[in-house]
């Protein structure tokens, strides 16, 4: 099972990489999406036994997906509005708030 955990962690880190290193809002949202997927998969891996996911892991996984869907749809809409206001998807230019 260890490689699966490692791969899952790599997926999570890829997501973080997207959030941290990418400047495009859409890419950041994609990064979040990858993180959500990795967390959902981690839940399934943790609960996996004998060909079936047991315990509450399925439920929590579903909650993860739904929560992710909710947050990301709001993010996408916010990103569109941000593009409308700032004229760019570049997060490093969207920084009126500082100090």
């Amino acid at each position, binding site marked *: 099972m260890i490689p699966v955990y490692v791969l899952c962690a790599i997926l999570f880190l890829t997501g*973080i990489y997207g*959030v*941290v*290193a990418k*400047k495009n809002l859409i890419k*950041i949202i994609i990064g979040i999406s990858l993180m959500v997927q990795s967390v959902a998969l981690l839940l399934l891996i943790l609960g996996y036994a004998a060909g079936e996911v047991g315990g509450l892991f399925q439920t929590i996984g579903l909650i993860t997906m739904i929560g992710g869907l909710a947050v990301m749809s709001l993010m996408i809409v916010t990103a569109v509005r941000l593009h409308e206001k700032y004229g760019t998807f570049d*997060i*490093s230019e*969207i*920084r*009126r*708030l*500082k*100090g």
Partner: protein
Amino acid sequence: MNSSMLLWAVFLPIIAGALCFAIPDRIKWLREGFTAVVTLATLVIAVLIFLSPEMRFQTAELGFAPVKFLDFYSYHFSSFLIMFVSLFGFLISLYSMKYMEGRGRLREYYPYILLTVGAANGALLSDNFLPFLGFWGIILVALFLFTTIGSRDASPERIFDAANKNMMILGGADLALIMGVGFLWYLSGSLTLSEVSIPLHGAMAISAFVLIMIGAIAKAGAMPMHSWIPHMAEASPASVMAFLPASLDKLLGIYLLSRIVLDFFELNLSMSLLLMIIGAVTIIAAVMMAMIQHDLRKLLSFHAVSQVGYMVLGIGTGTPIGIAGAIFHMLNHAIYKSCLFLTAGSVERRAGTMDLAKLGGLGRMMPFTMVAFFIAALSISGVPPLNGFVSKWMVYQGIIEAGAAQYWIFLVVAMFGSALTLASFIKVGHSVFLGDKPREIGVVKEAEHSMRFPMVVLAVLCVVFGIFAQLPLVYFIGPVVGISFPAFPAAISWTGIWSPTSGTILLLVALAIGGLIYLAGRIRVARTAPLYIGGETTGEGTTDSLSHAPGRLTGLRDTRVLGTEFYDTIRNMEGLKRAYDKGEAAAFDIYSYGKHVFPISEVLKLLHNGRLANYVSWCLWGLIILFIVMASIG
């Protein structure tokens, strides 16, 4: 007597203060009368408490800490102090009726007086540290609110700056006090004031002592925590100055300082020396600053700082007679300094200014004020037979009795401080009440009765406590330090208790020096006075001095001897000049060091540069640290 009286002494003024807010502005006589009556009633209660034996009032312990919500305990020390607190409250509310007339925010002013009296009584009577700290802080809040009311001639910014400074210095000191109390609790296991008594060993006990001492001397206004008083003086009405920094804060600060020396800790040599040094430096530095002031209020406030030095010095000696002298000096100081501020207030009310350069010759028109002023001024300068002399002398005796031969330096400093004080006050008295009246000031009247009464009462007290010094010593101070002074009929024989030879000689020398300094100032003035140029003074000269630019007065200089030149003489003396320059640049002001905080803030602000990637990376660093912690514990 019933111990619930203690509750009344605290909560009667507080509740009355809350009610007083509700009195509408239209019936101001009710508000003023109410305040005076309540403070008088508190005074009566305080006297009754003083006359009764020790009392204790306790509520049940709070569940969460070994603290009673209210734990009041009256014994000779606290009960004689609450008497004076209430007395000052009464006199000030009487004085304010006319003095504060026509100013804004009076609706708050009177309730604050009542709240302060109640809170001060509460702090003095509390026998548990938690309520004590609460009341102690309320006094500061009241001081802050009082200060924001402000005097007429100060700009709103200046007023708030003064309030700000009070809050910062005293608030910081209060936090030091809280820390100190925490340490004390940790060491002694008790939060009850009358139970705590620990030896002064180890870093924690020393820090506890120093921290509580900071709280106490800041309230009293000793250096280096003194700078709020002069700043406040510039922006506050004289009645407020007389009430809080001059009297109540001194009583409370020195009360706490005496408590830590007498009760909580057993004083050791190094701490004793520390206190004496603080005292000596305060005496001399503050009086030097006072010498160069042009503004009467500010001058008085520097003297208020300087006098604290005697009290701290006296307590620092650790000898019973020194501590008794310090406590007596605290009481005396509250009386004469309050009186001085009140006379200054009367002068301001009549002449419209407190600038020494613009005053003069008021003595004939304001005889009561003048007499009160001179009594108090001679008292503060330590001229026999007034009260200031007795207490100062006791402090000197304390220094001598403390034993170490090197302490003569403190003695000299204290005496020299006295001399400078005398010189300074002769000058002030001269330039305000004697000499020639400047044209700007028209014919002025003596202060109203309600203003005259407090001044006279305080002046009389100065005399009584001087001539019959045995009275307060036997009834108020003796029990506190455990000295039994000879009984009352032998009042005049106080000189016989201890051998005063060296003290007397030094004192006489000091007085002579004071006179000499004053004369030196006069001579210089006579030499440097410019010739009369004339012609500038326009016809619009009214008593409203606020409209005058300072430059306009230069033409008047020849006609009378001004205070200003005298101060400039001192100001420009070789060797002192640099110190004064630094002093005016606030190098000695602990508050001014606060600005070094802002660069840190700027650096931190730069870090918050609006980049989301950075913000998320910080979280990563947080996780990194947590992971490493996790690895290190297994």
